[in-house]
Protein backbone atom coordinates (compact mmCIF):
# COMPACT_ATOMS: atom_id res chain seq x y z
CA UNK A 1 0.00 0.00 0.00
CA UNK A 2 1.41 3.38 -0.96
CA UNK A 3 0.67 6.74 0.66
CA UNK A 4 1.95 9.61 -1.49
CA UNK A 5 0.07 11.98 0.85
CA UNK A 6 2.54 11.19 3.61
CA UNK A 7 5.47 12.43 1.52
CA UNK A 8 4.29 15.95 2.36
CA UNK A 9 5.43 15.31 5.92
CA UNK A 10 9.07 15.03 4.85
CA UNK A 11 10.65 18.26 5.92
CA UNK A 12 14.16 19.58 6.41
CA UNK A 13 15.51 21.14 9.55
CA UNK A 14 15.96 24.88 9.08
CA UNK A 15 19.67 25.86 8.92
CA UNK A 16 19.27 28.15 11.94
CA UNK A 17 17.61 25.39 13.92
CA UNK A 18 20.31 22.96 12.81
CA UNK A 19 23.03 25.35 14.03
CA UNK A 20 21.21 25.89 17.32
CA UNK A 21 20.78 22.16 17.85
CA UNK A 22 24.41 21.38 17.08
CA UNK A 23 25.59 24.11 19.45
CA UNK A 24 23.41 22.71 22.22
CA UNK A 25 24.64 19.18 21.56
CA UNK A 26 28.28 20.36 21.60
CA UNK A 27 27.74 22.13 24.91
CA UNK A 28 26.11 19.02 26.34
CA UNK A 29 29.04 16.88 25.21
CA UNK A 30 31.55 19.23 26.81
CA UNK A 31 29.66 19.51 30.08
CA UNK A 32 29.14 15.75 30.10
CA UNK A 33 32.84 15.16 29.60
CA UNK A 34 34.12 17.74 32.10
CA UNK A 35 33.20 16.00 35.38
CA UNK A 36 34.73 12.78 34.11
CA UNK A 37 38.01 14.50 33.19
CA UNK A 38 38.08 16.29 36.56
CA UNK A 39 37.44 13.03 38.38
CA UNK A 40 40.24 11.30 36.48
CA UNK A 41 42.68 14.13 37.22
CA UNK A 42 41.80 14.01 40.90
CA UNK A 43 42.34 10.26 40.98
CA UNK A 44 45.69 10.61 39.20
CA UNK A 45 46.89 13.22 41.70
CA UNK A 46 45.72 11.10 44.65
CA UNK A 47 47.45 8.01 43.24
CA UNK A 48 50.66 9.97 42.63
CA UNK A 49 50.59 11.27 46.22
CA UNK A 50 50.02 7.81 47.64
CA UNK A 51 52.93 6.44 45.62
CA UNK A 52 55.27 9.37 46.25
CA UNK A 53 54.63 9.85 49.95
CA UNK A 54 56.64 6.83 51.18
CA UNK A 55 59.51 7.66 48.81
CA UNK A 56 59.67 11.28 49.96
CA UNK A 57 59.31 10.25 53.61
CA UNK A 58 62.20 7.82 53.20
CA UNK A 59 64.33 10.45 51.50
CA UNK A 60 63.57 12.90 54.32
CA UNK A 61 64.48 10.41 57.07
CA UNK A 62 67.98 11.79 57.60
CA UNK A 63 67.17 15.45 56.95
CA UNK A 64 68.37 18.02 59.48
CA UNK A 65 67.10 21.56 60.13
CA UNK A 66 67.86 23.72 57.13
CA UNK A 67 67.49 20.88 54.65
CA UNK A 68 64.88 21.11 51.90
CA UNK A 69 63.17 17.90 53.03
CA UNK A 70 63.21 18.71 56.74
CA UNK A 71 59.61 20.04 56.83
CA UNK A 72 58.48 16.79 55.19
CA UNK A 73 60.26 14.83 57.89
CA UNK A 74 58.42 16.84 60.55
CA UNK A 75 55.12 16.36 58.71
CA UNK A 76 55.46 12.59 58.43
CA UNK A 77 56.77 12.18 61.96
CA UNK A 78 53.32 11.93 63.59
CA UNK A 79 52.56 8.97 61.34
CA UNK A 80 55.74 7.18 62.43
CA UNK A 81 55.10 8.27 66.02
CA UNK A 82 51.86 6.33 65.96
CA UNK A 83 54.02 3.21 65.96
CA UNK A 84 57.03 4.49 67.91
CA UNK A 85 56.35 7.04 70.64
CA UNK A 86 59.98 8.11 71.11
CA UNK A 87 60.79 8.60 67.47
CA UNK A 88 60.36 12.39 67.57
CA UNK A 89 62.60 12.80 70.62
CA UNK A 90 65.25 10.48 69.19
CA UNK A 91 65.09 12.27 65.85
CA UNK A 92 65.59 15.69 67.46
CA UNK A 93 68.64 14.53 69.41
CA UNK A 94 70.10 12.73 66.39
CA UNK A 95 69.57 15.87 64.31
CA UNK A 96 71.28 17.94 66.98
CA UNK A 97 74.30 15.63 66.92
CA UNK A 98 74.35 15.68 63.12
CA UNK A 99 74.35 19.47 63.13
CA UNK A 100 77.27 19.48 65.56
CA UNK A 101 79.22 16.97 63.46
CA UNK A 102 78.53 19.03 60.35
CA UNK A 103 79.89 22.18 62.10
CA UNK A 104 76.59 23.95 61.54
CA UNK A 105 75.90 27.48 62.69
CA UNK A 106 76.11 27.74 66.51
CA UNK A 107 72.88 29.70 66.81
CA UNK A 108 71.07 27.10 64.77
CA UNK A 109 72.43 24.33 66.99
CA UNK A 110 71.39 26.18 70.16
CA UNK A 111 67.95 26.82 68.75
CA UNK A 112 67.58 23.19 67.81
CA UNK A 113 68.85 22.13 71.22
CA UNK A 114 65.95 24.07 72.77
CA UNK A 115 63.53 22.37 70.43
CA UNK A 116 65.06 19.00 71.26
CA UNK A 117 64.76 19.65 75.02
CA UNK A 118 61.07 20.47 74.63
CA UNK A 119 60.52 17.29 72.65
CA UNK A 120 62.59 15.01 74.86
CA UNK A 121 60.93 16.09 78.10
CA UNK A 122 62.45 14.33 81.14
CA UNK A 123 64.17 11.43 79.40
CA UNK A 124 67.56 11.35 81.24
CA UNK A 125 69.54 9.60 78.50
CA UNK A 126 68.39 11.89 75.69
CA UNK A 127 68.75 14.95 77.92
CA UNK A 128 72.32 13.89 78.63
CA UNK A 129 73.04 13.63 74.92
CA UNK A 130 71.66 17.13 74.40
CA UNK A 131 73.80 18.44 77.28
CA UNK A 132 76.89 16.91 75.70
CA UNK A 133 76.23 18.70 72.44
CA UNK A 134 75.69 22.03 74.20
CA UNK A 135 78.87 21.54 76.24
CA UNK A 136 80.72 20.81 73.04
CA UNK A 137 79.66 24.19 71.76
CA UNK A 138 81.40 25.79 74.73
CA UNK A 139 84.46 23.51 74.67
CA UNK A 140 84.80 22.06 71.19
CA UNK A 141 85.96 18.43 71.16
CA UNK A 142 85.28 17.83 74.84
CA UNK A 143 82.63 15.26 74.31
CA UNK A 144 83.70 13.97 70.98
CA UNK A 145 84.72 10.34 70.94
CA UNK A 146 87.99 10.16 68.97
CA UNK A 147 87.35 6.52 68.12
CA UNK A 148 83.71 6.94 67.31
CA UNK A 149 84.40 6.80 63.61
CA UNK A 150 86.28 3.56 63.88
CA UNK A 151 84.08 1.28 65.88
CA UNK A 152 85.81 -1.97 65.00
CA UNK A 153 85.23 -5.59 65.80
CA UNK A 154 88.34 -7.01 67.50
CA UNK A 155 87.65 -10.52 66.40
CA UNK A 156 91.25 -11.74 66.67
CA UNK A 157 91.65 -10.39 70.23
CA UNK A 158 88.69 -12.39 71.45
CA UNK A 159 89.35 -15.59 69.57
CA UNK A 160 93.03 -15.62 70.57
CA UNK A 161 92.14 -15.13 74.20
CA UNK A 162 92.00 -18.52 75.93
CA UNK A 163 89.22 -17.22 78.16
CA UNK A 164 86.97 -16.83 75.17
CA UNK A 165 87.04 -20.60 74.75
CA UNK A 166 85.26 -20.95 78.05
CA UNK A 167 82.42 -18.65 77.02
CA UNK A 168 79.26 -20.04 75.58
CA UNK A 169 78.62 -17.15 73.23
CA UNK A 170 78.69 -17.94 69.54
CA UNK A 171 80.79 -15.95 67.13
CA UNK A 172 77.75 -14.19 65.76
CA UNK A 173 76.51 -13.04 69.16
CA UNK A 174 79.95 -11.85 70.06
CA UNK A 175 80.18 -9.90 66.86
CA UNK A 176 76.75 -8.43 67.43
CA UNK A 177 77.68 -7.35 70.93
CA UNK A 178 81.02 -5.97 69.94
CA UNK A 179 79.70 -3.80 67.19
CA UNK A 180 77.97 -1.71 69.84
CA UNK A 181 81.03 -1.16 71.96
CA UNK A 182 84.17 0.82 71.48
CA UNK A 183 87.67 -0.62 71.45
CA UNK A 184 88.27 0.50 75.02
CA UNK A 185 85.14 -1.15 76.28
CA UNK A 186 86.20 -4.39 74.61
CA UNK A 187 89.60 -4.22 76.23
CA UNK A 188 88.07 -3.57 79.63
CA UNK A 189 85.79 -6.55 79.21
CA UNK A 190 88.71 -8.76 78.27
CA UNK A 191 90.62 -7.60 81.34
CA UNK A 192 87.70 -8.39 83.60
CA UNK A 193 87.54 -11.91 82.18
CA UNK A 194 91.27 -12.47 82.62
CA UNK A 195 91.08 -11.26 86.28
CA UNK A 196 88.59 -13.97 87.01
Amino acid at each position, binding site marked *: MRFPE*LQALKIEVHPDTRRRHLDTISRAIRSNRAPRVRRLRLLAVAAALVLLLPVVALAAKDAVPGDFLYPIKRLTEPIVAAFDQDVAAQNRVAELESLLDANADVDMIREHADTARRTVGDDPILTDRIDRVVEDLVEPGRNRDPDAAERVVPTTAVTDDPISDTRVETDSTIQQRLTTTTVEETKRASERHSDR
Partner: protein
Amino acid sequence: MSSLALLLPVEGVRITGLTERAHPLDAHVDGIRNTSETAFRAVYDVLADDLVSFAYGMLSDRRAAEDVVQQAFLELVGAARRFKGDGRALRAWLYRSVRFGCLDEYRRRKRRPEIPHDSVPDSAVFEDHMAGQFDPELEQALESLTRRHRTAVLLKHVSGLSGEEIAVVLGTTRRAAYAVVKRAETNLRARLGVSR
Protein backbone atom coordinates in the same frame (compact mmCIF):
# COMPACT_ATOMS: atom_id res chain seq x y z
CA MET B 1 13.82 8.39 28.32
CA SER B 2 17.57 8.09 28.35
CA SER B 3 17.58 4.57 29.65
CA LEU B 4 19.83 2.02 28.06
CA ALA B 5 16.80 -0.23 28.13
CA LEU B 6 15.86 1.42 24.87
CA LEU B 7 18.82 -0.28 23.30
CA LEU B 8 18.35 -3.68 24.71
CA PRO B 9 16.37 -6.10 22.65
CA VAL B 10 12.94 -6.67 24.06
CA GLU B 11 12.33 -10.32 24.76
CA GLY B 12 11.37 -12.10 21.57
CA VAL B 13 12.54 -9.33 19.22
CA ARG B 14 14.92 -10.56 16.56
CA ILE B 15 17.39 -7.84 15.83
CA THR B 16 19.92 -9.96 13.96
CA GLY B 17 18.65 -8.43 10.75
CA LEU B 18 19.72 -5.03 12.12
CA THR B 19 23.32 -6.05 12.49
CA GLU B 20 24.00 -8.16 9.44
CA ARG B 21 24.13 -5.43 6.79
CA ALA B 22 26.48 -2.47 6.73
CA HIS B 23 24.91 0.88 7.53
CA PRO B 24 26.19 4.41 6.79
CA LEU B 25 26.12 5.18 10.53
CA ASP B 26 28.42 2.25 11.37
CA ALA B 27 31.45 4.50 10.82
CA HIS B 28 30.27 6.91 13.53
CA VAL B 29 29.30 4.46 16.25
CA ASP B 30 32.73 4.42 17.91
CA GLY B 31 32.83 8.21 17.80
CA ILE B 32 29.40 8.35 19.43
CA ARG B 33 30.58 6.02 22.20
CA ASN B 34 33.55 8.34 22.78
CA THR B 35 31.19 11.34 22.71
CA SER B 36 33.07 12.85 19.82
CA GLU B 37 31.51 16.12 18.64
CA THR B 38 32.39 15.25 15.05
CA ALA B 39 30.54 11.94 15.25
CA PHE B 40 27.48 13.60 16.80
CA ARG B 41 27.47 16.23 14.05
CA ALA B 42 27.75 13.54 11.38
CA VAL B 43 24.90 11.49 12.85
CA TYR B 44 22.79 14.63 13.24
CA ASP B 45 23.41 15.56 9.61
CA VAL B 46 22.39 12.09 8.45
CA LEU B 47 19.32 11.60 10.64
CA ALA B 48 17.98 14.97 11.74
CA ASP B 49 15.67 15.56 8.76
CA ASP B 50 14.16 12.07 8.93
CA LEU B 51 13.71 12.24 12.68
CA VAL B 52 12.10 15.67 12.54
CA SER B 53 9.79 14.49 9.74
CA PHE B 54 8.74 11.51 11.84
CA ALA B 55 8.16 13.66 14.91
CA TYR B 56 6.33 16.24 12.79
CA GLY B 57 3.97 13.50 11.57
CA MET B 58 3.44 12.40 15.16
CA LEU B 59 2.86 15.84 16.67
CA SER B 60 1.59 17.97 13.76
CA ASP B 61 3.80 20.72 15.18
CA ARG B 62 7.14 21.51 13.61
CA ARG B 63 8.67 23.39 16.55
CA ALA B 64 7.66 20.67 18.99
CA ALA B 65 9.05 18.06 16.58
CA GLU B 66 12.42 19.84 16.41
CA ASP B 67 12.53 20.14 20.18
CA VAL B 68 11.83 16.44 20.59
CA VAL B 69 14.62 15.54 18.15
CA GLN B 70 17.07 17.81 19.92
CA GLN B 71 16.11 16.21 23.22
CA ALA B 72 16.74 12.75 21.74
CA PHE B 73 20.27 13.76 20.76
CA LEU B 74 20.89 15.22 24.21
CA GLU B 75 19.75 11.94 25.74
CA LEU B 76 22.13 10.13 23.42
CA VAL B 77 24.97 12.30 24.78
CA GLY B 78 24.16 11.02 28.26
CA ALA B 79 23.82 7.38 27.19
CA ALA B 80 26.56 7.31 24.53
CA ARG B 81 29.23 5.60 26.64
CA ARG B 82 26.88 2.72 27.42
CA PHE B 83 25.69 2.37 23.84
CA LYS B 84 26.06 -1.11 22.35
CA GLY B 85 25.25 -1.89 18.76
CA ASP B 86 25.95 -0.82 15.21
CA GLY B 87 24.74 2.06 13.05
CA ARG B 88 21.33 0.51 12.50
CA ALA B 89 20.86 0.03 16.24
CA LEU B 90 21.88 3.66 16.72
CA ARG B 91 19.21 4.80 14.28
CA ALA B 92 16.60 2.61 15.98
CA TRP B 93 17.69 4.02 19.36
CA LEU B 94 17.15 7.58 18.17
CA TYR B 95 13.77 6.80 16.59
CA ARG B 96 12.67 5.10 19.75
CA SER B 97 13.84 8.04 21.83
CA VAL B 98 11.94 10.43 19.54
CA ARG B 99 8.85 8.23 19.83
CA PHE B 100 9.01 8.42 23.61
CA GLY B 101 9.57 12.16 23.37
CA CYS B 102 6.40 12.46 21.27
CA LEU B 103 4.44 10.39 23.81
CA ASP B 104 5.70 12.71 26.57
CA GLU B 105 4.55 15.67 24.47
CA TYR B 106 1.07 14.10 24.12
CA ARG B 107 0.89 13.69 27.89
CA ARG B 108 2.07 17.25 28.44
CA ARG B 109 -0.58 18.58 26.05
CA LYS B 110 -3.27 16.55 27.80
CA ARG B 111 -2.27 17.99 31.18
CA ARG B 112 -1.89 21.53 29.88
CA PRO B 113 -3.67 22.10 26.57
CA GLU B 114 -2.11 24.92 24.59
CA ILE B 115 -2.09 26.37 21.11
CA PRO B 116 0.40 24.54 18.90
CA HIS B 117 3.53 26.48 18.09
CA ASP B 118 2.75 26.54 14.39
CA SER B 119 -0.51 28.41 14.84
CA VAL B 120 0.97 31.37 16.68
CA PRO B 121 2.88 34.14 14.89
CA ASP B 122 6.54 33.22 14.84
CA SER B 123 9.75 35.07 14.24
CA ALA B 124 10.49 36.16 10.70
CA VAL B 125 13.20 33.56 10.38
CA PHE B 126 10.90 30.62 10.86
CA GLU B 127 7.60 31.98 9.60
CA ASP B 128 8.01 31.20 5.91
CA HIS B 129 9.65 27.91 6.55
CA MET B 130 6.92 26.61 8.81
CA ALA B 131 3.75 27.94 7.33
CA GLY B 132 1.04 25.67 5.93
CA GLN B 133 2.91 22.46 5.39
CA PHE B 134 0.58 20.09 7.18
CA ASP B 135 -2.50 19.13 5.15
CA PRO B 136 -5.53 19.43 7.51
CA GLU B 137 -7.22 16.39 5.98
CA LEU B 138 -4.08 14.31 6.39
CA GLU B 139 -3.72 15.56 9.93
CA GLN B 140 -7.31 14.59 10.66
CA ALA B 141 -6.75 11.12 9.21
CA LEU B 142 -3.60 10.64 11.28
CA GLU B 143 -5.36 11.92 14.39
CA SER B 144 -7.99 9.24 13.95
CA LEU B 145 -5.37 6.48 14.24
CA THR B 146 -4.20 5.10 17.53
CA ARG B 147 -0.75 6.37 18.53
CA ARG B 148 0.77 2.98 17.89
CA HIS B 149 -0.75 2.80 14.41
CA ARG B 150 0.28 6.35 13.67
CA THR B 151 3.83 5.58 14.76
CA ALA B 152 3.97 2.43 12.64
CA VAL B 153 2.67 4.04 9.47
CA LEU B 154 4.98 7.04 9.80
CA LEU B 155 8.02 4.86 10.46
CA LYS B 156 7.31 2.87 7.33
CA HIS B 157 6.13 5.52 4.85
CA VAL B 158 7.91 8.69 6.05
CA SER B 159 11.12 7.36 7.60
CA GLY B 160 11.44 4.24 5.41
CA LEU B 161 12.34 1.90 8.27
CA SER B 162 12.35 -1.85 7.67
CA GLY B 163 10.07 -4.28 9.47
CA GLU B 164 12.84 -5.25 11.89
CA GLU B 165 13.62 -1.65 12.71
CA ILE B 166 9.95 -0.82 13.24
CA ALA B 167 9.74 -3.80 15.60
CA VAL B 168 12.68 -2.46 17.63
CA VAL B 169 11.23 1.05 17.77
CA LEU B 170 7.82 -0.22 18.83
CA GLY B 171 9.39 -2.67 21.27
CA THR B 172 7.68 -5.73 19.85
CA THR B 173 8.33 -8.74 17.63
CA ARG B 174 8.80 -8.40 13.90
CA ARG B 175 5.65 -10.36 13.21
CA ALA B 176 3.62 -8.19 15.56
CA ALA B 177 5.15 -5.09 13.99
CA TYR B 178 4.08 -6.24 10.52
CA ALA B 179 0.55 -6.79 11.81
CA VAL B 180 0.47 -3.32 13.39
CA VAL B 181 1.72 -1.71 10.16
CA LYS B 182 -0.85 -3.59 8.11
CA ARG B 183 -3.76 -2.57 10.31
CA ALA B 184 -2.50 1.01 10.45
CA GLU B 185 -2.26 1.22 6.67
CA THR B 186 -5.77 -0.19 6.26
CA ASN B 187 -7.20 2.29 8.75
CA LEU B 188 -5.35 5.24 7.23
CA ARG B 189 -6.39 4.29 3.73
CA ALA B 190 -10.00 4.10 4.88
CA ARG B 191 -9.77 7.51 6.55
CA LEU B 192 -8.11 9.16 3.58
CA GLY B 193 -10.60 7.52 1.22
CA VAL B 194 -13.49 8.95 3.22
CA SER B 195 -12.05 12.42 3.37
CA ARG B 196 -11.13 12.63 -0.33
